């Protein structure tokens, strides 16, 4: 990494040392395929956006023709690793001092130059127009700053879960991330640049500047530079964080001797900012004056924001602009002010990617023909550097980040993602059961747990590509990357929003993909599937021999037992005796840790469900010998079944394409499944995700449509990732069944049980009428 000298953003000199070198591996990734550019040049930082395509390997499964089956030996299906091209948005943030070097780099690496224009926004856009045009040979096309800001804001609010957060300085976790509300409008955006703009946003295209103020970041900086010896914005903020404003401000108690009780004004309230500095015979410290100035400006902005929020009846107020930009000091004072003036009715909200809004918006303006808004996008944890800010006193390392490059990468998802229509209250749905940002003990455990498991993951990754000699090298790079992410998260748990087991798992998947390990478990999955298939008929037969009531219990046990044989939990060799599978003796007999089997059984004596949506988990024994017989029973009862599986690989979870093949094979053996498939009573859909966990607010649109069409009245969620780490507390508007075996002793302990405790949670929403 280049040693980067700090540049006074104030002087905004763009003639800089040409010897500045960039770490090309890390930044401007995929530049050779970049095709659309936008740039947002602010007072001190430049944000570059480009659209590129990423070629990476994906594992595809394909059924063998029956005619060639013999030739394929005893392989169940063909696994082919293919190159796939996906779209990715790159956003990079760097100090203005690097503009020239960066432009040179871009020019040198730009292969595909069908691009003719670069969209530009921000106050500095005109200053660098000539430079950009000369260096890149692209025409600079200026876009309105506010329009870009709003477009960017809408985009991140819609596409990035945990984008918005509340800042609480003295709470256990400073950052409290908001759940993604599918309905983001209307909201108020208070942009605090050198002045303040207050914008009401009503829809994607409708927004209005309803007010503003000239007292903003420029006032803090300008007055601060006049009053103190400090001339830089960041340093003024640091100065302010060390000061005592009460020596400069006239407080209520200075006038009253105490509080002004009948008006509810406490003694510590500021009655007059700088009210004490009129006495000329006193000297005031720089720190105290900076603090007083910060309070004055933050309170004033907060007050105006509240007045506008009240006038327009808006409760969501987002703050942005360079005055905020992740500075804990200003986020704290603004939050304080908002709480004071609205008595807690309005919360000050901040955005993780606030600094990128202008660049994102400018990019979207230029990409309108590609219709980026019709897709869903996902933050790529592997390529994004995350939120960096912490209190400067808490982490002196943070300042050293100035001079480095921040990145955000977003992948265009193949599928458009929407809410599960069966969520009771989408706006309060939180997928994750434990927020590790708030729970320090849990965080420590899981971070260590993932760190310890890393060796195994690396080994598995290498083993999955035995014929590729450089796999070991790539796997090592993967290890370094993920280890680095874990270390970052140890210090800044909030870097990617709320830290959860899900985000740790997803980050690992993203990192694996990054280094072309698309599906390390593909061969294991295939082998397990193959073996399990051989036992399917026997399993079904033995189930049919049971009495109805015994069978219902055996089916549930089957799902749970199947779920135990998660890869890594037990050795494969233990698996294959029917006795083991169906008579599996859990370490705890009934009653289970969570046990509503009796209610479930009672329910089964009633009329069948119309349609069940089943979110499946692992491949092999789990899906074939646990889930399928259970599904078969539902079908026999007259219930339609929608099997939702992952769109892309994650661990040993069964993917949609694998499940297609498996189901065909089962149908060939089992007339019940076969006729259900042909009559469309059994449908296979993808869930839109490649995560071992499940976010019911981001599901494939097709799935959501199907759920609605079929009038689904039962949701079954299986496995630890989907039913325990996530969705344990999810409230659905129809009956639901959550089944899992807790295969982690720490978690079992947390939930008050032992290793291999069983969770069988059958819930009927309150107020739901008796099914008929």
């Amino acid at each position, binding site marked *: 990494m280049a040693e980067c000298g700090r540049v006074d953003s104030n002087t905004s000199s763009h003639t800089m040392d040409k010897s500045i070198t960039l770490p090309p591996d890390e930044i401007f990734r995929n530049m050779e395929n970049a095709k659309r550019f936008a740039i947002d040049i602010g007072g001190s930082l430049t944000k570059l956006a480009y659209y590129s395509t990423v070629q990476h390997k994906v594992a595809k499964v394909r059924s063998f023709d029956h005619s060639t089956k013999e030739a394929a030996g005893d392989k169940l299906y063909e696994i082919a690793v293919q190159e796939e091209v996906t779209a990715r948005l790159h956003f990079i943030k760097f100090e203005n001092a690097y503009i020239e070097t960066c432009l040179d780099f871009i020019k040198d690496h730009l292969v595909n130059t069908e691009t003719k224009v670069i969209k530009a926004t921000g106050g500095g856009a005109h200053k660098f127009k000539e430079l950009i045009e000369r260096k890149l040979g692209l025409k600079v096309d200026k876009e309105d700053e506010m329009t870009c800001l709003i477009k960017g804001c809408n985009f991140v609010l819609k596409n990035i879960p945990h984008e918005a957060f509340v800042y609480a300085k003295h709470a256990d976790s400073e950052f409290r991330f908001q759940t993604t509300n599918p309905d983001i409008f209307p909201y108020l955006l208070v942009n605090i640049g050198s*002045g303040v703009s207050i914008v009401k946003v009503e829809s994607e295209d409708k927004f209005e500047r309803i007010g503003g103020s*000239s007292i903003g970041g420029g006032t803090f900086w300008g007055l601060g530079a006049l009053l103190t010896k400090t001339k830089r914005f960041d340093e003024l903020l640091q100065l302010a964080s060390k000061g005592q404003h009460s020596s400069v401000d006239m407080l209520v108690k200075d006038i009253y001797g105490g509080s002004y009780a009948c*008006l509810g004004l406490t003694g510590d309230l500021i009655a007059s900012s700088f009210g004490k500095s009129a006495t000329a015979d006193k000297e005031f410290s720089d720190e105290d004056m900076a603090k007083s100035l910060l309070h004055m400006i933050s309170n004033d902005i907060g007050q105006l924001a509240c007045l506008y929020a009240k006038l327009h009846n808006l409760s969501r107020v987002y703050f942005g602009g360079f005055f905020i930009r992740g500075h804990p000091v200003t986020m704290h004072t603004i939050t304080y002010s908002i709480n004071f003036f609205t008595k807690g009715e309005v919360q000050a909200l901040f955005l993780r990617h606030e600094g990128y809004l202008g660049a994102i918006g400018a990019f979207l303006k230029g990409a309108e023909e590609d219709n980026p808004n019709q897709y869903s996008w996902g933050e790529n944890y592997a390529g994004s550097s995350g939120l960096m800010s912490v209190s400067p006193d808490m982490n002196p390392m943070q300042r050293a980040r100035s001079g480095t490059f921040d990145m955000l990468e977003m992948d265009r998802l193949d599928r458009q993602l929407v809410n599960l229509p069966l969520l009771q209250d989408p706006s309060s749905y939180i997928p994750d059961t434990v927020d590790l940002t708030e729970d320090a003990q849990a965080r420590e455990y899981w971070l260590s747990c993932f760190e310890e498991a890393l060796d195994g993951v690396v080994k598995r990754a290498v083993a999955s590509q035995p014929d590729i000699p450089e796999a070991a090298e790539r796997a090592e790079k993967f290890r370094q990357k993920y280890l680095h992410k874990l270390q970052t998260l140890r210090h800044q748990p909030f870097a990617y929003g709320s830290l959860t087991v899900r985000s740790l798992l997803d980050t690992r998947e993203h990192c694996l993909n990054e280094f072309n390990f698309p599906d390390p478990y593909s061969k294991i999955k295939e082998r397990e599937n193959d073996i399990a298939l051989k036992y399917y008929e026997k399993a079904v037969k033995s189930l049919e021999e049971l009495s109805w009531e015994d069978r219902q219990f055996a089916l549930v046990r089957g799902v749970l037992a199947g779920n135990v044989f998660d890869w890594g939990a037990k050795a494969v060799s233990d698996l294959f005796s029917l006795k083991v599978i169906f008579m599996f003796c859990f370490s705890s007999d009934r009653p289970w840790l969570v046990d509503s089997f009796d209610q479930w059984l009672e329910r089964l004596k009633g009329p069948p469900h119309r349609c069940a949506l089943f979110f499946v988990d692992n491949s092999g024994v789990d899906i074939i010998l646990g889930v399928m017989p259970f599904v078969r029973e539902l079908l026999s009862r007259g219930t339609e079944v929608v099997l939702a599986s992952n769109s892309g690989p994650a661990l040993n979870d069964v993917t949609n394409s694998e499940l297609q093949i498996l189901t065909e094979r089962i149908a060939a053996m089992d007339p019940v499944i076969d006729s259900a498939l042909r009559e469309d009573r059994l449908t296979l859909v993808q869930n839109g995700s490649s995560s071992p966990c499940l976010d019911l607010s981001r599901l494939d649109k097709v799935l959501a449509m199907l759920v609605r069409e079929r009038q689904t009245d039962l949701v079954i969620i299986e496995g630890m990732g989907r039913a325990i780490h996530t969705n344990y507390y999810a409230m659905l508007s129809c009956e639901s069944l959550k089944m899992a075996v807790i295969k982690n002793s720490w978690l079992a302990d947390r939930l008050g049980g032992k290793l291999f405790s069983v969770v069988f949670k059958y819930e009927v929403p309150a107020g739901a009428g008796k099914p008929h």
Partner: protein
Amino acid sequence: LKIEDTQPETHAFPWFGMDIGGTLVKLVYFEPVDITAEEEQEEVENLKSIRRYLTSNVAYGKTGVRDVHLELRNLTMCGRTGNLHFIRFPTQAMPRFIQMGRDKNFSSLHTTLCATGGGAYKFENDFRTMADLELLKLDELDCLIRGLLYIDRVGFNGHPECYYFQNPSDPNSCVKKPCNLDNHFPMLLVNIGSGVSILAVYSENNYKRVTGTSLGGGTFLGLCCLLTGCETFEEALEMASKGDSTNVDKLVKDIYGGDYERFGLQGSAVASSFGHMMCKEKRDSISKEDLARATLITITNNIGSIARMCAVNEKIERVVFVGNFLRINTVSTKLLAYAMDFWSKGQLRALFLEHEGYFGAVGALMELLKTSEDL
């Protein structure tokens, strides 16, 4: 005046009303001019001495000032005729004032010292221990409204107390016009002292404090002192009158080259107060007068902006500005008048009162007279 029907003897002189603010103490003194020879004979010496001292001087000590131009002559209060004097001195001089009360043996007089403002609470104990005086403490907002309505009723020596600016948006034809506040209610009352309080007033006894801001007169003076080294409000205003704030503030046109049409912002609007001061070259090229002016404009515009929002939220069209920040401060009064008119597209009207900062003290005096009645 309606408070005149009780017996004059019940109100022992001297009559004072006092408002002890964060920066200034405002004192109103009723000088009876209808004293009979008999009365004069009975009058104790220190009462005479107080009257002589206050009425024969226009300045007291180094910092006390009598605003002679505001004096209300031949006023009838509680059946007595006299002149109402308006005196102010810095709150810092309170200890000396209390000392004087002791020296003049004020406690021997049969009067009550009615005081409002925060200082009534803060200095209560000092009055008691140093001068053996018991204060009657009064709520400052009650006093403000009562005093304001009273002065508006009696008028300013035959002229209206209230005024506004005609053509506030046109600097060339903008003129001060007297007016009557006949339909008082509802009004938004913006009291600009060291800090600012904003009240929605629906009747004499029905009002609420809507909000307030700490960016007030104290902020203007405090910042001016730090930025220019000036020492008094007068000095600060004098400098401000000569300065050019556009050297200090970043205007819309400095950023956009002209108007920001997308949002209907004029190029001459201030985009960032003190925004040019981020830059060293600009910092080196401005004068103290420019800084004083920018400070004044920043504070005034901000108060105007908050007041306007409150007026809209409370659905009140009349905005009355009072408080000593407006004393000898036509830059601010005109700017407030302009801001109310321009940003509300003529919906709001800014009104001002001649006795800017004295209403609290007047209200306190009236409480004295009312109290005497009750005895």
